[in-house]
């Protein structure tokens, strides 16, 4: 840590900021209290750029960049909230709502859901895309937890926390496109998984009602993904 950090200077929403060369646009923005909406990102986990909510505009190119996986560069001029970006964010959220069965009124996570909250903060009052209404299973075979594919948005937080933090790698993603599903072990009932340690980290980081603790049903319990930052700190600040 004695080596001098390389520093980049850039401009986000008209504000001059400096950041370490290894930081992402998202990290630099948040350090400077510039809010960018995110869904698949979670402090303490690696970033995958799966949800596309954190897209930003960079001057000089028409391409949009996912700020969670784009490193800062010298002289970048970044805009985080334009009409175009807001349109795409709303569209992304609408597609997430339309793809599976997010019936908020009867969901265990109603009132404690990141997708629901983001929909409201981005001004969603309805979904323009036709709902797909797929028939999806619920896996309640685990003694303590349930997996409801109807509510899953494939953010892969569960996959990452299980592999990176718990070290069990019980979760993974199987299939492509509309057939993509999170699975446990070799696509077997969660309750029969031999690698699962029942630690519950996947449940706490899940942003929706896709993974929930059976004992929380009906309690409007909030999840606590913030344990990750504490845990990483205890382990020596590897986040």
């Amino acid at each position, binding site marked *: 840590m004695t080596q001098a950090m390389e520093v980049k200077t850039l401009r986000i929403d008209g504000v001059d900021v400096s950041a370490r060369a290894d930081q992402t646009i998202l990290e630099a923005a948040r350090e400077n209290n510039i809010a960018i909406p995110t869904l698949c990102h979670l402090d303490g986990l690696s970033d995958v750029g799966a949800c596309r909510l954190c897209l930003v505009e960079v001057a000089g190119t028409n391409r949009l960049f996912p700020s969670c996986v784009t490193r800062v560069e010298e002289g970048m001029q970044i805009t985080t909230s334009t009409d175009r970006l807001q349109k795409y964010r709303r569209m992304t959220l609408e597609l997430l*709502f339309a793809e599976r*069965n*997010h*019936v*908020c*009124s*009867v*969901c265990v996570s*109603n*009132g404690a859901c990141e997708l*629901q*909250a983001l*929909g*409201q*903060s*981005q*001004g*969603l*009052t*309805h*979904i323009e895309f*036709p*709902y797909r*209404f*797929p*028939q*999806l299973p619920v896996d309640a075979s685990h003694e303590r937890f349930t997996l409801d594919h109807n509510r899953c948005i494939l953010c892969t937080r569960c996959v990452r926390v299980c592999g990176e933090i718990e070290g069990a790698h019980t979760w993974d993603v199987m299939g492509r496109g509309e057939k993509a599903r999170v699975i446990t072990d070799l696509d077997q009932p969660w309750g029969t998984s031999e690698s699962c340690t029942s630690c519950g980290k996947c449940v706490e980081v899940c942003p929706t009602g896709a993974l929930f603790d059976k004992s929380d049903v009906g309690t409007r319990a909030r999840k606590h993904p913030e344990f990750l930052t504490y845990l990483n700190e205890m382990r020596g600040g590897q986040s």
Partner: protein
Amino acid sequence: MKKKLATVWLDGCSGCHMSFLDMDERLIDLAEHFDLVYSPIVDQKIFPPDVDISLVEGSVSTDADEHKIKLIRERTATLVSLGDCAVTGNVPAMRNAFTVDSILERAFGDRPVTHPEIFQGLPKLLPRVRPIHEVVKVDVFVPGCPPSADTIYTLLRELLSGGSVDVARLTRFGA
């Protein structure tokens, strides 16, 4: 001049109408500004022409719902999709993963086949429950299950005075 207000109950639980009534004494003040020309709570069988505002609760689930909502659209200036069933399909749409036949069989056994006369004259279930805006154009969307009385009050107050409302600040899906 008083505006003509209609409230409509399609495939929903009437919770949105309960929420409407939950405006309590504020309804008395609001009523200065509208005539309730059609509603489950007034005795009027035919949807009248030239309605200014229609609050529509519930999803479109039967051929009768579909017929009704098209007529309402024709005769309404501002159509409000009220509540999650109207806006998203919500609980009624949970049947969409199944066929109509399997649903009828689950509820009535073999009666639809052995005694079809029992079902004569009843609205037919559509193959798929739809939110209102998949069938007709909607002007204002008010999610919530149900939207609170405060939300409905703020909305009506603004609509009756010709104003507009940023609905997302008031309510959300599942609220």
